């Protein structure tokens, strides 16, 4: 098993609020890692730190062994140029919680934008691929619609297709289902499940404990910016070792 993502000693503060406090964790290639934890515990911040949308104060992140957003120079970590960071990001898919589609572009334009611009895929080829992807997420008939003409679950699936269009080696999901009603949650989870089956490396911040148990290979529970407990879902979610984890899971039920 190879390590896909490695987070070491991640620290991030907003003023005096230490949102990430020496976070260490790894995600294996080809596996689904679920991050759970109470609201405000730093899950989104951690996820955003992985593709350098949120620069760390100290610590570092590697994806398949490559430092993200920084480089090693004379024993110190120096921030990369904006351009280099953007290039790294184009290999990491990110699906936001909500409202992240470009409303003035049609569904297919949303999906092909990044491959055409960052990977110089010819437009016709990108469109053909986008159609495949959209078919895969069940939106073959919506390619010319605009995002606001779609339901919430459909929008979320477009967002996933957009992230997939870059053929990323890693996809980060930030609460992909929190804005959706239960029926739509199903639509999105099906897509993620299919991706998992195909062996895509994914890190998913989620409140869906059932989903985490079913799909995740590895669960990380964080609280107040610290990793409290991590391990296989059967352990963390069914027989947690820490009181804090038990308390959190108890509240959810």
């Amino acid at each position, binding site marked *: 098993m190879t390590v896909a993502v490695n987070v070491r000693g991640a620290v991030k503060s907003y003023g005096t609020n230490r949102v990430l406090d020496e976070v260490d964790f790894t995600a294996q290639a080809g596996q689904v890692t679920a991050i759970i934890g109470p609201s405000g515990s730093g899950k989104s911040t951690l996820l955003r730190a992985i*593709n350098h*949308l949120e620069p760390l104060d100290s610590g570092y992140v590697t994806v398949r062994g490559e430092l993200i957003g920084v480089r090693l120079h004379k024993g110190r970590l120096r921030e990369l140029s*904006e*351009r280099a960071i*953007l*290039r*790294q*990001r*184009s*290999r*990491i898919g*990110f699906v*936001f919680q909500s*409202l*992240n*589609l*470009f*409303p*003035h*572009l*049609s569904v297919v334009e949303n999906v092909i*934008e*990044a491959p055409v*611009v*960052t990977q110089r895929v010819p437009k016709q080829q990108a469109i053909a691929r986008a159609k495949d992807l959209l078919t895969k997420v069940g939106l073959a008939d919506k390619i010319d619609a*605009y*995002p*606001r*003409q779609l339901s919430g679950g459909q929008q979320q699936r477009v967002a996933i297709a*957009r992230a997939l269009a*870059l053929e990323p080696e890693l996809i980060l999901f930030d609460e992909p289902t929190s804005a959706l009603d239960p029926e739509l949650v199903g639509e999105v989870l099906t897509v993620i499940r299919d991706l998992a089956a195909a062996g895509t490396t994914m890190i998913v911040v989620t409140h869906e404990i059932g989903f985490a148990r079913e799909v995740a290979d590895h669960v990380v529970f964080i609280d107040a910016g610290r990793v409290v407990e991590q391990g296989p879902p059967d352990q963390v979610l069914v027989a947690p070792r820490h009181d804090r984890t038990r308390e959190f899971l108890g509240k959810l039920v």
Partner: protein
Amino acid sequence: MTSSSPPKPSQETELPQPVKESAETAETTDDLVDKLESRRVVPLRHPWRWVASAVVLVLLAQAAHALTTNDAFQWDAFGYWFTRPVVVEGLLLTLQLTGLSAVFGLLGGIVLALMRLSRNPVLQSVAWAYIWLFRSIPLIVLLLFLANITALYATLSLGVPFGPSFVEFSANDLLSFYMVAVLGLSLNEAAYAAEIVRSGIISVDQSQLEAASALGLPKGRQYRRIILPQATRAIIPAYANQLIGLLKGTSVVYITSLLELFGVVQSQASINSGQIIPLLMVGTIWYIVLTSLLSIVQYYLERYFSRGALRTVPPTPFQRLRSRLRTTGVAR
């Protein structure tokens, strides 16, 4: 009847008489549907709308009558002046000045807005100072200053500040009055356009930039493809306002010895002083024509840039007219 209240009471009171009777005899409203003569709901009538429309139309007719029959307006003089070459020349100058300074002003405004929004404190404060300065200087003083820059600098040069210069121009050769006018209007316009563009950009949700940068889109592309098209939607109405102001504001260029539409009208009125009112009407009607054209362009631009922002784009007036004719059976 006692247990179930009708779901839409207003609808029931609108029902035709015979149906109402049968509804009263019915045990419940559940089987009402079978007893209706027609299922169509009769819409509420609005008699006061008709009254209000009639009043407004009468007032309009009176205004039209007052305008056309009062000889103070000297409509024959109006007709003479309306298409006089001197007036048309002024009109063309107005159009050129407005067009050029609208374009240069907008380009400058975009650059200034991006500077103000950048994280570079030098760019930020330079843009801020520019906007502050050019919104403070009266346009007329700016134009007079530029027109007479030769009194201060006989030559203008491009080169290193305080160092050698590469090219030198005689200010008088370079700056014709026409260019002074375009330059002055554009410098002024850019300051206002900058704020309009900035307001458009900050009206686009921050998450759009974040999403674009998560996809790895280059910075320039993020702005060109993602932010500006969405900002444009907010920019258009405000900039159209600004343009209409500019259209009429160009009249101050008389200070640099150019006469545009209003200047010509003023100048001719001061010579043909018995015809001040018809001449002012000539200017007014031309401005109305130009403003109307701008409003039409604005309408279609807004429609174009509302793609995706509205679930359904509203029909154009033309389409609306056609569909109305179709529903009344006039056109098919």
